[in-house]
């Protein structure tokens, strides 16, 4: 294979074909009995609320978690090439990496101090 990424698509195609075929078969084979109560949102037997909690909107806490995730995920993405090329880059890269981690750590300490890591 000259193009190493193509076999990944084989796997993707197989997985998708299997999932789609299973769901489709189940749609064809399975019974269909209409019942209005069955189609209501499940709330353990009590009268369901017309919409999901908070009108289906997402609490701000999760947004904050997602933002923090981006910060630290980018940090680890920067650490990957450093780690892979470390044996070619030498002492310079080591010092740079420590400085970089310290810089991000300042942001981390700030977020911690301001309560960004408190869940409640």
């Amino acid at each position: 294979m000259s193009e190493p990424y193509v076999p990944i698509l084989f796997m993707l195609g197989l997985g998708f074909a299997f999932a789609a075929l299973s769901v489709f078969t189940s749609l064809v084979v399975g019974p269909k009995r209409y019942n209005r109560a069955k189609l209501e949102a499940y709330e353990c037997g009590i009268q369901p609320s017309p919409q999901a909690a908070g009108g289906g909107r997402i609490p701000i806490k999760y947004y904050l978690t997602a933002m923090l995730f981006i910060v630290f995920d980018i940090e680890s993405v920067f650490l990957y090439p450093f780690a892979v090329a470390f044996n070619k880059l030498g002492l310079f890269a080591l010092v740079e990496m420590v400085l970089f981690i310290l810089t991000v750590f300042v942001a981390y300490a700030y977020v911690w101090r301001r309560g960004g890591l408190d869940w409640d």
Partner: protein
Amino acid sequence: MSLSTAAYDIALSLPAGVTGLAPANDNPVADFSDTPWWVALIKAVGVFVYLLLSTLLVIWFERRVIGRMQQRPGPNRNGPFGLLQTLADGMKSMLKEDITPANADRIVYTTAPLIAATMAFVSFAIIPLGGTVSIFGHETPLQITDVPVAVLLVLAVASVGVYGIVLAGWSSGSTYPLLGGLRSTAQVISYEIAMGLSLVAIFLYSGSMSTSQIVAAQSSLWYILPAFFSFAVYVITMVGETNRLPFDLAEGEGELTGGFHTEYSAMRFAMFYLGEYVNMFTVSALATTMFLGGWQAPPFIAAIGDGALNGGWWGLLWFTIKLWMFMFFFVWLRGSLPRVRYDQFMRFGWRFLIPITLAWVVAVAFIRGAQLGFLGQGTFTIGGRELSVATVVIVSIVAVIALAAAWIWDDKRAEREAAAEFNPPEEIDPFEGGFPVPPLPGQRLREPSGLAVGSGAASREPVTSSVTSTLTSSPVKEETHG
């Protein structure tokens, strides 16, 4: 742009004396030159079937082992030892009605399980399952493909798989799935950081992100030893990533019914189920590849017959054994541990795992730098073994820092525990807080000296019991509490 290139040039020119230590390149060592596309397709089908059969088997295995742990037999009716139980369950869910709730967003609701199941399979494309074998006359590695950024690809695919969960939760138009989907997303992305950071140590040792190269680099020493702490962090985060007990907060039955898949039924539900188990295999396979030498035989077996059992199709056997050790570990956890609380879980991830893994990465970088000779080339000899001065010094410093940190940590915890220890007073006023409080063991109740029911005027007299004063002041207290 030019600035960064200049920095790179400086970096390359600085350690001119040590570039000879570096491997020639960081590309995969597995040779795919003799692999036409149809052989790759055969291998893909083979891995796909391997995964499906493993999933069928592991669900049965889990239920049987959990059964034994709880002193009951587990499923044993369908087929020998109940082996066909999972197949029967699959057939049953296919013959059930596929419900789409009235509130649901139809398109997203249908797409979500497809994303979850499809993405679970993709990562396995870069996992090396064995050595080089011959398939229809073509010499090819027992691995679908390998790329220079293979491990990064696994993390990326896992991130896309999260979409299946969050979209399922959102599109159901119901409260429990929404909360479950959100929890699951926050959980997976939080633990993915610590997981990603724990793998940096491996890349520092192997100098590559290609899985075949990482496996080849472990031929003399499995990375579980030099990167033991990374292994511990990885094992914790892989349980968090796959939403398994004790971290299955996304589908905690007691609080969220079924979490993100509450509204799903029939085969769409089965797709989430399948995705979860295939994901367990994927993270276990990655752990095997990164820390346990991949498909390589254990050292004492590898020594037999000059490596006769260490390659080719034999690799598949060792790989499968290592994989199932992790699966047993998953089941074992589920059989032993209760679910953690969500805020504790998030705190553990953000406040403990991330900083301590970062510190570990720095420590490994220094140790690795010393080993590669960046911190000085001096050596000395003890007992016939030549040791680098820098390595010994750095390892000692890391050990001292780790010990000191552990000591301070222990001290602080003892202090906290001492502070938290509560000595109840011998005598209490049961109505002090505005509502009756029962006494703790060994406590006496203070007897009210006079009874004043509903008399506000009596409160001025000093003999009045605290009951009255509490009653009159209670609205104020409620305000402060509110």
